């Protein structure tokens, strides 16, 4: 049995909504697990069930070898960072950090020691006497993490903690969270809808959709080898291009081009997925793209345009290439990096 074990966990709300379907998942000690998915997919519900803030309708949750189903949240020894931080507005930072320790009956000197250590680690020592209302967004974020760290819990739970920060701060805090987790080495679950956050933070990633884990794996596994249409579309930015096609006798005929010798026996309607970064320009290539818009990011250019059949398409090329609006590009798929999905089930077939 691993450190945190979810077995056939199901959540049905009193109004009949099924938020989580028979989900099973194991997380090892010290692992950084990220739940990623669109809003309403059940990722937060799953996290809150681990925290004990939601009842488990069916299934078991085991933490460190103990069944947690009926254990009160205060007894679970888990710490959570909330989206809006949920700092205690009437307490100063010191007391925000110390409150959980006081409730556990730890003596004053130990509390002071622990709070000061956590504050130093998070560089909030100068603000200990301030109220949360006098702190900036990033500082509040740190206090919220401090409150989690100071208790030295078995597991950290993060519920979209970065979504209230501006873009620059978000990237900075993302890095800090990752560093901190590596330093402290506490098992963590991080919930986000942002796939970049998910990719950068995760040791392992669970892509969740409609209450089901669609795919579980390291970020690179999931990026390189998406098992379903949903995962392929969700992970990667800009999004993967999808084209309709037909697969017959190992030959894929998409709109305007064909790919032969496909490693699949599937026959029928399919969706072809190609990542914008897996394309390159060459003479007389498969795909012909009429450029409508170029986004210059500096390091890269994102080229948006239409195929012959008016289908929107995106191509990512190095930033040093000049691409004229209105020109026609001829694109090849690099190293056969394309993905074919069964159109009816969304399952990967190649």
């Amino acid at each position, binding site marked *: 049995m691993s450190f945190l074990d979810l077995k056939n966990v199901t959540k049905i709300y009193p109004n009949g909504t099924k938020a989580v379907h028979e989900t099973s998942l194991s997380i090892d000690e010290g692992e950084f697990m990220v739940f990623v998915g669109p809003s309403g997919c059940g990722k937060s519900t799953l996290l809150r069930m681990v*925290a*004990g*803030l939601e009842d488990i309708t069916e299934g078991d949750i085991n933490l460190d070898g103990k069944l947690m189903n009926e254990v*009160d*949240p*205060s007894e*679970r020894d*888990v*710490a*959570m960072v*909330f*989206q*809006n931080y*949920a700092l*205690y*507005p*009437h307490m100063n930072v010191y007391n925000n950090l110390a*409150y*959980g320790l006081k*409730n*556990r009956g730890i003596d004053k000197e130990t509390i002071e020691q622990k709070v000061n250590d956590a504050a130093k680690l998070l560089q909030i020592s100068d603000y200990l006497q301030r*109220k949360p*209302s006098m702190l900036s967004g990033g500082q509040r974020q740190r206090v919220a993490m401090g*409150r989690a760290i100071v*208790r030295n819990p078995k597991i950290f739970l993060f519920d979209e903690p970065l979504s209230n920060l501006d873009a620059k701060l978000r990237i900075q805090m993302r890095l800090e969270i990752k560093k901190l987790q590596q330093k402290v080495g506490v098992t963590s679950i991080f919930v986000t809808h942002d796939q970049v956050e998910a990719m950068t933070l995760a040791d392992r990633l669970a892509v969740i959709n409609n209450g089901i884990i669609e795919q579980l794996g390291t970020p690179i596994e999931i990026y390189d080898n998406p098992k379903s249409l949903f995962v392929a579309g969700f992970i990667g930015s800009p999004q993967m291009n999808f084209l309709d096609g037909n697969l017959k006798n190992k030959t894929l005929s998409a709109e305007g081009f064909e790919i032969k010798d496909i490693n699949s026996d599937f026959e029928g309607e399919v969706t072809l997925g190609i990542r914008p970064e897996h394309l390159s320009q060459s003479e007389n290539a498969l795909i012909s793209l009429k450029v409508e818009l170029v986004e210059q990011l500096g390091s890269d250019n994102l080229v948006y345009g239409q195929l012959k059949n008016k289908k929107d398409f995106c191509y990512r090329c190095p930033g040093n290439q000049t691409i004229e609006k209105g020109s026609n590009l001829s694109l090849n798929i690099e190293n056969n990096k394309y993905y074919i999905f069964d159109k009816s089930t969304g399952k990967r077939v190649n």
Partner: protein
Amino acid sequence: MKIKPLQIIAHIILILGVLLMVVPIWISFASSSHDSVTILTEGMKFHIGDQLARNYNEVLNEKGGWSEEVTAAKMFINSFIMALGIATLKVVISAMSAYALVYYRFKLAVPIFWLIFITLLVPLEVRIFPSYKIVSDLGLTNSYTGLILPLVASATATFFFRQFYKTIPDELLESAKLDGANGWSFFIDFLVPLSKTMIAAMFIFMFVYGYSQYLWPLIMTTAEEYWTVVMGMKIIYTESYEGVALPRTAERFAYIILSMIPPVLVVVFLQKWFIKGLIQTEK
């Protein structure tokens, strides 16, 4: 700085308002410092007279009533105890019942809330006989408990606390739970400090409400040692008319001025918190 005509008008209105509030009090105070004969012959006074100390001393310490034992000082103490008891218990009970209604989502929470709310339609004056019957059966007539207890439930305060608690984000409760807070400590460590301005405001209202009670203490108390200030006001107004004695107008004014002091003190003392809470949103 240029003064606009609109500002002048606004200030005139404000000054008129202030005068309307202050002048009657000042007249009462000034009149309380004269001799009763002067007031009876010359009317009310605007300036301070020379009988201030004598009048106040007399009002506070003269023994009155049928038993000739109760003094105004005693009545002030009674009123203060009654108002303090009512205000404190009202705030405590309302805050706690609102907490139960908002955070413990038991099945009947909503009907129970409306039941509490409906009691607004049945003030003490309407249910005074049943209330008296209960208190008298419990043997609580002529006691502070009897004066306070029937007035401690408050639908208004429960409603205000409920509305306030509903604005507190759920995450705060969840976060506190994960930090090991139980139901009781969440109330004490979070809701009470967060609603302290609310508590101050409610305390002010309820103190004044308790202090100005008239009918209930009148019915409840037969022993003079439980008389309250407001009852005394009635007595001091009606006593000794039939005899040859002159109405003691100056002492009445002194009594009125004194009777205003406790509620004013409560307001002045709690106002600091009250205003602090209004300008500092901590949620």
